Structures are given as C-alpha cells and as structure tokens.
C-alpha cells in the first residue's frame, strides 16, 4: 500500500473500532440510524474542516472558522426577519465567505504575515460583528427550513441520510476533486511542501494563496449555512471553539500541520471520530461533558505521536 494512505487507514481503523466499542456497549448502536444522525449532526463542522484541510496542507492555519459559522447564522437569521429566502441569503453568505477568504489570503501573502495572526484578527472581527448585530438567538422561521430538515434519502435499516449530510458529502466530493485532480490542488501541496521551491517552479503564489483561503472561507461559510438551517436559528455565540474541533479533525484525519501532506477524505473520518466520542458519551448518560474534552485531547495526542512515528520512520528511510 502507498505509504501516504497509512494515516488515513489508521484513522478509519480507529473510527471502526470506536463504532464497534459502541456496538458492544449499547444495543442498537451499530445501525444506520445512529450512523445517519452522526453524519448529520457533525456535517457543519466537517464541511468547515474540509476547507481547513486545504489551508493546513498549504502550511497555514485558519482560526476564524467558528466565528464565520456564528456570523453566517446571525446574518441569515436577520435577513430572514426582513423576508429574505434562506437560499438567497445563504448564497450571499457563501459569496461573502469566498471574498473574505480571498482577502485574508491576499493580506497573508502580500504583507507576509503569519496566517495565525491574520486569521486570529478575523476571529475577533467576525465574532465581534455577530455581537454588534444582535446578542440573542434569532429564529429562522421560513418554510424552507422545515423542508430542508425534512428532506432525506432513506438508508437500509431505519436510518436516513439527512439533507445536511448530503450537502456535506457533495462538498467533500468537490473538495477531493479540487485537491487531487486539478492543477490548483497540486499547487497547494507544492506550497505546503516547500514554499520557496514552489515559487521557483512557477507556482503563482498570490493567486494560489488567495484561492486557498477563499476555499477555506467558502467552506466555513457553507458550514455556517448548514448550521443555521440545521438549528433554524442564528446565535451570536454559535460555533465558538469550532475552529479547534475543525483543526483537530484535520489532524486526526492524517494531515500534517507542517503542510504538504494529507488527504481531504481523512478529514471526514477525523470529524466523525470526534462526533462519535460525543455520541458514545451521550449514550452513557452518566459521564459529563468534561469527558468529551479530555478524550478529545487524549486522541489528539495519540494521533500526533502516531504521525510523528510514521513520518519520522519514512523520512529517515527514504533519506538513507
């Protein structure tokens, strides 16, 4: 097997193992019902994390995901109050995410500032804008929201593939295509592998950097739209801390934070592992939310050490 698939394989093994543990502990855990809900409940984080995957593969980082999810929801809810169709306001927010991301990419590349700091400013800016618009949760009452929530494809068994999960899978397919079958995707890997070499080989740096962060902005805005439709409300604190869940999902999915290595598909399973831990702890009922944080941290640690070990041994071997 190609060694680049090893981290992905490890992630899938952990996911299947966790699912099996759930099946041993609880009746009816291994069912399409639980699986369908798992996909739907975590769709918005996974969508946002897919965009982050590109950013991280390019060697950058995006901290503004959670704020973007909150901001998109608040704007959509307020536009709903004045009678906009959620699809129109949602589409507008996707364009906003794209333009915002491109601007972030431009600032990072032109001013040569670390992505960490620029997107940190983005985190403050978007979250602060949420608070400036309104402080309370605003419901989205449009009929479309109910229609969207009701739409689903039945799975074998009792489960169904909810609309948010469908959107997530389409977004994932698009991202896999962009990442692995286009020149732009190859450029992202090249920049992440070695920025200077990529520039010398003729990768258009500014255009690619803007594209990478535009993708990140677009996907986190899409995550925000899905979250707003899924919860049928806009809440200024929505998505707080989701940037960390998204980054952790990407890392669990086998993408290296040093850039240049990773698979978009891995992020799906990384995000699902986080969702599965939460589901398992909810099934138990007697464990509190603190366990989600601790188990998340422990898993993150194990995966990073595993990656470290894998990468270390392969790099050494190929160098020798």
């Amino acid at each position, binding site marked *: 097997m190609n060694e680049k698939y090893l981290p992905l394989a490890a992630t899938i093994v952990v996911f299947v193992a966790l699912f099996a543990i759930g099946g041993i502990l609880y009746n009816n855990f291994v069912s399409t019902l639980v699986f369908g809900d798992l996909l739907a409940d975590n769709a918005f984080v996974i969508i946002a994390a897919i965009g982050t995957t590109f950013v991280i593969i390019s060697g950058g980082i995006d901290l503004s995901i959670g704020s973007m999810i909150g901001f998109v929801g608040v704007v959509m809810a307020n536009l709903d109050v004045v009678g906009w169709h959620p699809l129109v306001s949602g589409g507008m927010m996707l364009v906003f995410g794209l333009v915002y991301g491109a601007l972030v990419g431009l600032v990072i590349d032109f001013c040569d500032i670390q992505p960490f700091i620029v997107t940190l400013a983005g*985190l403050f800016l978007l979250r*602060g804008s949420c608070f400036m618009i309104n402080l309370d949760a605003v419901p989205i009452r449009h009929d479309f929201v109910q229609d969207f929530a009701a739409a689903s494809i039945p799975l074998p068994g009792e489960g169904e593939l909810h609309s948010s999960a469908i959107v997530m899978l389409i977004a994932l397919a698009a991202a896999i295509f962009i990442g692995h079958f286009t020149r732009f995707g190859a450029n992202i890997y090249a920049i992440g592998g070695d920025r200077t070499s990529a520039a010398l080989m003729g990768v258009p740096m500014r255009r690619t950097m803007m594209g990478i962060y535009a993708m990140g902005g677009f996907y986190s805005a899409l995550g925000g739209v899905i979250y707003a439709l899924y919860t049928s409300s806009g809440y200024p604190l929505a998505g707080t801390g989701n940037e960390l869940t998204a980054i952790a999902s990407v890392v669990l999915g086998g993408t290296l934070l040093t850039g240049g290595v990773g698979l978009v598909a891995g992020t799906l399973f990384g995000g699902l592992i986080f969702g599965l831990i939460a589901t398992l702890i909810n099934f138990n009922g007697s464990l509190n939310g603190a366990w989600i*944080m601790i188990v998340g941290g422990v898993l993150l640690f194990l995966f990073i050490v595993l990656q470290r070990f894998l990468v270390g041994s392969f790099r050494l071997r190929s160098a020798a």
Partner: protein
Amino acid sequence: MSQAQTTSTRSSSLGATLGAIGRHRVVWPLAALALLFIVDFIISPSFFNIRIVEGRLFGSLIDIPYRAAPTALVALGMAVVIGTKGIDLSVGSIVAIGGAVITWRIHAGDPHLLILFIALAVGLLCGLWNGFLVAALDIQPIIATLILMVSGRGIGLMINLLYGGTDPSFTSPLLQGLSTGHIGYIPTRLLVFVFIFALLWTLLRRTALGLFLESVGGNTAAAYLTGINARMVIFSAYVISGLMASSAGVILTADTHTSDPISVALNIELDAILAVVIGGASLGGGRIYLGMTILGALVIQSLTTTILTSGMPPEYNLVVKAVVVVVVLLLQSSNFRSLTLSILARRKR
C-alpha cells in the same frame, strides 16, 4: 525625467525618515497608548485623576495596570515561548486547572501558603508536559499545546468533582490578599507583578538563558551547532510559560474566589499573543522583548477601558480589537509601507 527623479528621491528620503521612526520598536505601541489616552481624556476629562479611597489609590491609571496584570504575566511567558519560534495555546487551560486545584486543596484544608506553591507546581507540570511534547517529541508547538488547550478545561471540571463540585467558592485571606489586596496605597497585585517580572528579567538578561532562547528561536540548527542544548532551552521556555500562566491563575482565581474552568481566562492566549505582537516581536522567533510585551498588554487593556469609558456597548470590543490588530500588522509589514508611500508620492505629483 528629472521631475520623476526628484519625486523618487524625495519619496525615498521621506521613506527613510518614516522608516527610521517606524523601525524603532518602541514608537508604535507608545503612540497607540498615547492616542488611546488622548481619546480617553477627550471623552472623560477626569480620566487622569487619581484619588485615595479607603486607603488605596483609585483611578483609571491604576485600574488599567491592575486589570492588565494577569494578561501581562501570561504574555511574558508567551513572549519567551514565541522567542523560541514556538507558541503556547494552553495558557488559558493552565489557569483553569490551577484554579480548580486551588479550590480543591482549600476544601481539603491545606495551609494556604502550601496551596500557593501547589498551584505554581501545577503550572510547572503543565509546562513540563508541553515542553516534553515540543522538545522531546518534536511536535509542532501549535498542535502540541492544542492538546492541553482542548483537554485542560475538562481536566479542571474533573478536579472540581473531587470535592463534590457543588460549591466551588472559597475564602483565603492569603491568596485574595495577593490578588485584590493592597500594601500601602499600591495594589498588591502590581507589586507581585513587579516581583515576578524582576525574577524573569534577571533569569533572562543576567544569565545566558535569554541569549540561548533567542538564538534557538533565530536558528535552531545554528544554535545547536554552536553547542547550545537546543532541546533543553526550548523545554525551559514552556516551563517558564507554564509557571507564568499559573501565577496569573492564582491572581484570577483569587479575584473571583471561585473555580470556573469553563470560562476563566477565556481567550487569554489570544490576548497574550496579541500583546507580544504589539510589542514588536515576530512570531518567527529570535527576539524576546519583555518590557515591550508589558506595553502591549497595557495597550490591549487601555483599548478595553477606552471602549467602556466611551459608552460604546462592550460588544464593540472585539471588532475594535480586530481593527487594531490589522492596523498594527499592516504597519509592521514593509510591503504595505512601501505601497502606501508610493501611493502618497503619486498623489503629490
């Protein structure tokens, strides 16, 4: 042709002067602080008044350093870590764990002086863990400290369960005295801060450690080749950051005399990083500016105070902060400076 030449020489001499001023790292943060104070003075002319109320100094000029002290402590530790080209995202979690441990041990009935040292030991332990991940396992600092950041507040909640967790409040004359008390007219917290700062300054500038830290941050490989034990140096940076975070944790926990792992010191890591960056240090490592970091923390706190005195809703705080970050970053970028200068020169023609 000659006209174009004179324009370009004029703009370059203008650029040189502006560049020389802009390059001196103390100018921008000081200008920002002065600007904020001027705004404050215009909004509220009594801004600079200092009164004595109940035997202690009272007024905005005391209030700003008083509130900035915990962030400044964390930021000093962060400055050391950033100096080694690292970052420590876990400082907020360290504060949370420290707070939970303090409350737990107070409920268990330990002597309060001992608890002070236990709290610092907790920070030391967290620093050792981060240092182990970064220095021994070679994990990227962002992700290595992300582990404790993600799980730390959960650990704090678990520690709260050790004493039942039903009543997380406490009273402690010693700890609360350190945080909210005053010696003479001066808040004890500021004296504690000056003491810790003096210790850190001595450690970094009167021993070779500061030089080692900066050389490792500047170029790890070169530092290693000159005989510096790069791993130990990086390790020590995270230990220092953990200690600084836990001392801020003592002040913050005693201030509210309760343990609230979920919301205590929320986003303090972002403020601390911001303070370091406003202080002129690059996240690329190689430089530690202790005094400038304090200035950065003061700028951030003055900003918050200004927003509050101006009567703007506190919701605007984050947006204003974001705008300040962007402006500071753009001013630090040489590409952006030359672009604005060339636009200015074109306008003049």
